[in-house]
């Protein structure tokens, strides 16, 4: 917070005004102004977010924190342990697949549904009904999403019943326990539960696109496909990028869904960074190493966030 008192010489343009005392005070106020608006946010985030994160960073440099009476500074030893653990690499690979596939599918499905729901052919009431149906998966706490899908996908569940009845599969498919199906299955569940957020944002974005652009495209004899790629997508690009970034960050820390459906199994086929960290912390009580893993995730996402902010800056 001390930075507020010593802002660097900014706003050079204002220097043209006479340096009267009152102006200087107003200038100071103007510089402090933004921090006045930001202060509730900063107070809250510093006390309740930055503090625990700093503590976690501290833990990551010590050994046997929390669970043992004495802990010592060990430098980056815990980081070494995490980075050389083959399971960590498996977790990174699975997480990237899980989050990447989820984000792409959220986008594709969200976009498809948004386009359909945005059609001018539909009346307001019809739209309202369908919109409500299409956001349903968003309304349920993740624990319920997990148990619901466990039920649906269980060997004697409704999904197997339907696929067998319609002859799509012979015999029982072990959706969640077959080592080769588990990761796609949990990814599918996450796609189901997460697409409405994308859909709603895209739907909103679609309504913000000026009709003139489509009319201009029509004059150029652009068909629906061409319109989509030359008008809709470029216009929505800022939303798509923001949503994709946020969705990616949120999906990488999806814990409850995976834990309650597969527990990271079978074997380690659905092990994610989140389940890996959880097991370190609460199954082996290795909070130091768990903290190191968390810090690695934090650094990776800070890089992502930095690229994003820079991209925004460049666009402005």
């Amino acid at each position, binding site marked *: *917070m001390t930075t507020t008192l010593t802002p660097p010489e900014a706003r050079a343009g204002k220097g043209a005004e006479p340096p009267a005392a009152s102006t200087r005070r107003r200038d100071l106020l103007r510089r402090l102004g933004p921090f006045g608006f930001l*202060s509730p946010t*900063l*107070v809250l985030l*510093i*006390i309740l977010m930055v*503090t625990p994160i*700093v*503590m976690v960073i501290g833990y990551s440099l010590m050994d046997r924190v*929390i*669970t*043992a*009476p*004495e*802990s010592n500074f060990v430098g980056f030893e815990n980081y070494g342990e995490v980075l050389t653990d083959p399971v960590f690499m498996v977790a990174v690979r699975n997480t990237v697949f899980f989050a990447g596939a989820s984000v792409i599918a959220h986008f594709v499905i969200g976009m498809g549904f948004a386009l359909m729901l945005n059609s001018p052919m539909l009346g307001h009431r019809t739209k309202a009904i369908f919109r409500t149906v299409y956001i349903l998966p968003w309304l349920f706490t993740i624990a319920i999403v997990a148990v619901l899908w*466990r039920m649906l996908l*269980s*060997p*004697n569940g409704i999904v197997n019943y339907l696929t067998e009845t319609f002859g799509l599969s012979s015999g*029982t498919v*072990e959706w*969640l*326990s*077959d*080592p080769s199906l*588990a990761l796609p299955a949990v990814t599918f569940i996450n796609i189901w539960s997460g697409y409405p957020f994308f859909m709603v944002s895209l739907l909103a974005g679609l309504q913000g696109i000026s009709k003139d652009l489509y009319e201009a495209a029509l004059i150029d004899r652009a068909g629906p496909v061409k319109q989509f790629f030359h008008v809709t997508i470029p216009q929505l690009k800022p939303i798509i990028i923001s949503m994709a970034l946020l969705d990616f960050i949120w999906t990488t820390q999806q814990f409850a869904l995976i*834990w*309650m*459906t*597969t*527990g*990271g*199994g*079978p*074997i*380690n086929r659905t092990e994610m960074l989140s389940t890996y960290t959880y*097991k370190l912390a*609460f*199954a*082996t*009580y290795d909070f130091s190493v768990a903290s190191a893993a968390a810090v690695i995730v934090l650094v990776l996402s800070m890089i992502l966030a930095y690229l994003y902010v820079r991209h925004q800056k460049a666009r402005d």
Partner: protein
Amino acid sequence: MSNGARARKAFMAGAAGFAIFGLAACSSGGTTTDDGSTGTDTGSGEEVTLEFAQWWEPELPEGMLRGLMDQFEEENPGITVELLSGPYASTKEQVVAGAASGTMSDVVGLDGAWVSDFVQQGAISDLSALMTEAGYDESQLASQVQLNGSTYMIPVVNFAYMLFSNQDLLDAAGVDVPTTRSEFEAAAKAVTTDDVSGWILPLSLEAPNGIQNDVMSWVWASGGSMLADGQPDVTNDEVKSAVEFIAQLDADGVIAPGAATLKEQDKVEEFTNGRVAMMVSSLAHINTIRESNPDLNFTLSALPAEDGYTGERGTPYASWGIGVAENSEHKAEAFKLIEFLMSEAANGELANAANAFPGNSTAVPEFVENDPMFQTAFDVWQAGYPANEFVGLPVAEQLMRDFSEQFQSMLAGEIDVDTALANAQAAWEEEF
């Protein structure tokens, strides 16, 4: 001051320090280190409020545990008990977090698999010292969980694991309830059809206690052990023969599909719906099954042993255990509560409500006398010895998970039995 307490104090100081820093920098306000664990005042003659954190209350008939507490309060004027209940699946995290910040409840419900970790963390008290102080007669306790010669957990009630058989399915296939492994294999094969599996094996990694209840139980039932001198020994012949036996059942195709993600609750649902002929399960499930499917005709028996084994059979069990928080300011009162819960009358009542066997060695719950099925079970329990080698082991849950991963790998055909056991042994040695 114990080491654990010192660590917690340092931790709290750190947290409070950060908080003071944050508050001083940005707004006014003080830090109140309200440990929240106990009531207002200490000292003799004054009111004491004991917190009792457990997951039992939602498992028991409504108002049952509260009723016992009322009785305790009546017998011990000046002590009131506040029951704090949480979901079973999250109990462990809550205790760990509570211990780290010194807010653990005075009396806590424990699972044997957690004891070693909590002792390590300095979270739970040495009950031997409290028993000595209170002049308690230990002989009435059926069992105690000890580490380094001191008791840290007392099993209040025990849930024995036995073989549940769907009698109608066995009769239709013309087989008897199996008592040996080869009989079991034959029976499982005989009942297995397109819609029915002989046996069910839950190996979920979320709650990996299937390894304890459904895999290692076969070892213990034949008098075997997975440890040697307290160290891991899962490559021994006894474990190997049990694992090979299960691998054979899998090869026979008699195990219900989906093992890798099944949990104990799923196992019971499948059995209840008549899709599985036999399961190894907790007596706590008798009532669940009866409620869900009153028509199901099932029987209980001891877990089958190796062919020709005539020794005493280990009966696997899980407990609702109890311990006292190291940070409690009312340890003497806390022990009074334990004493009460372990007394013949209260313990019998609790066991009765939970359909479990009492931790008090003389209590006989009513259900045993009134229900022939429980009578059978009680006889099996008395004839064998309680066996659960995971109790008191460090990171017991992770040990089960390590073993489960190897086991799944083996069932998926990726590695053979010897490799799986060698890998599990290596993983366990690392955890110890």
